[in-house]
């Protein structure tokens, strides 16, 4: 089973990348790893309390769950399994270490656009994927580019004020 890494911002739109994974790797079941970047807490108490599974559960909206279930059901034969990876590191080495046990061989990332991470502590792990995975397929990703761009370059984002 081929393991494919796909960045996600836990929006239904980001799951388009899964369809592109199916286009790129047809004929074999895929183990899809959805990776989401999340800054680890700054305080000691926060670190003690931190649970990536709980954070993932908080970020996964109902619409996202429905869309994921729908894609998995539609392409049941092509998608073997889906796993979520919360990356809390801050550099390429940490990312390599995080994906190493998963046996990732390929990745599908958005070509021009960036993921629209609304959460204050979330970040787009696409740049780490480009550096750490050997075969990266860059695919068109349809999203509201103006909204994504506005958010990406907003003062709120620069000062990390988003909630």
């Amino acid at each position: 089973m081929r393991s494919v890494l796909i960045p996600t911002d836990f929006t239904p739109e980001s799951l388009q990348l899964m369809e592109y994974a199916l286009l790129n790797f047809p004929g074999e079941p895929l183990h899809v790893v959805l990776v989401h970047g999340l800054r680890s807490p700054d305080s000691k108490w926060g670190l003690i309390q931190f649970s990536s599974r709980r954070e993932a559960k908080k970020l996964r909206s109902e619409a996202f769950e429905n869309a994921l279930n729908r894609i998995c059901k539609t392409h049941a034969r092509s998608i073997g399994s889906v796993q979520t990876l919360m990356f809390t590191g801050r550099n390429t080495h940490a990312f390599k270490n995080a994906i190493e046990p998963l046996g990732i061989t390929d990745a599908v990332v958005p070509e021009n656009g960036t993921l629209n991470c609304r959460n204050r502590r979330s970040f787009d792990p696409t740049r780490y994927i480009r550096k750490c995975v050997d075969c990266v397929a860059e695919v068109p990703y349809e999203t509201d580019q103006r909204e994504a761009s506005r958010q990406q370059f907003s003062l709120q984002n620069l000062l990390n004020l988003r909630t």
Partner: protein
Amino acid sequence: MRLRTRITAIFVLLTALLLLGVFTFIFLFSGFYTQREFKVRMEGRLVQLATVLETSPVLGTAPGEEGTADLAAYQGPALPEEAVGAYPIPSHPEMAEIIAGQGLPESFARDLQESGSATWEQGGRFYRGMLADLPGGETLLLLSARDTYGLNKQRNLLNLLILAYALSLACLLLLGEYFASQALNPINRIIRKVQSIRAGNLDERLEVGRGKDELAELAGTFNNMLDRLEIAFDQQSRFINNASHELRNPLTAILGLTEVGQTRQRDAASYRDLLRDIEREANRLDHLVDGLLQLAQTGESGKGFTAVPFRVDEIAMEIKEAMTVSGPGERIRLDLEQLPDDAREITLTGSPTLFKVALGNIVENACKYSGDHPVQLRVLNDGNDILILVADKGVGIPPGELTNIFEPFYRGSNVRSSRGYGFGLPMAYRIVRLHHGDIRISSQPGKGTLVTIRVPNLQGQRGLA
């Protein structure tokens, strides 16, 4: 009436009513307190009179006889137009006679009997009576006076309030006019700006500003509408360009061929060849015009088509069969393994003919642009929706062109050498939209295209209704 005038009028009217209520309240309560103060002063004067009479009681002795006390000690500031009287009263009926003799009502005598004191006001003159137990027996003390100062005070207050009210109204009018114009200025700016936007400067937008108020929302809504208008204009312009281009090509070919035929005398075989070429180009033109007509008929309104329930899997099978006859059907892998047990879950109400055209166009495109690779056609159910997946491993659609593929006559930059008119996908899109469905396309050059059609089944359509 203009909105500005209406806002000013409502503002002034409401404030004027409020002010009128407040001023009336002030005036009435001021009168009430003035009267109460005057009555207290009358009471004080009567108590003073009773004290004087207690020490030097020189009173009449006969019942009802008016006494003449030495009122030298009864001094101090008298009330305006003050008149006093002290009447010894052996019995209550006689008191009533005395009171009636003074022109006072019976209720005055009744109040006196019940509470020992009474007050009456007539024509601006106040009467105050009090029963005092003096050494000469029970005595009725009567005092009458006119509250000249209080009346003057009330009159002055009334004048002041009327003046203040008039000035307030004038100020309110000016302020109301100013604030109404201030409030409506942004709307006037929006109106002027919107009026200045024509087909030539559709790229201009209204200033939204930094605020998050209703006016910013209105400007934002106008801008969104202008965005849509601009896109529609662009689409229309592109459509006209593409349509003219596509229509002109066969016409130019026909004109060229007829010109060639007229240049010199030819043999019959050459003329037949020429006529065959002209027929081919005329057929192409005919096909184009047919396509345009069909596209126009599949408008968003959905008028004129009879809706009947039909099964999507049957349509898919018919398409495969039809395409097998014409050639590429052999490469279609029809996958119906995930069909639900209940046929109603893959049944929808609509036009089976139109739906067949839509799905046929998509499958035909997939076959046309995927060379010898197989094309997968799957039908499955997802809750209240029917999903139709068409996957090919063809040339794909270049990035950036995905948003244009539903425009009539638009053809991908990597397939322009193939035969086609750019009608298939726009028509399919319109037909699917007519069936309350949606088409999503994921495509990558060299890898292939995945078309996902989602249409509501019978249950889903019931929910939409």
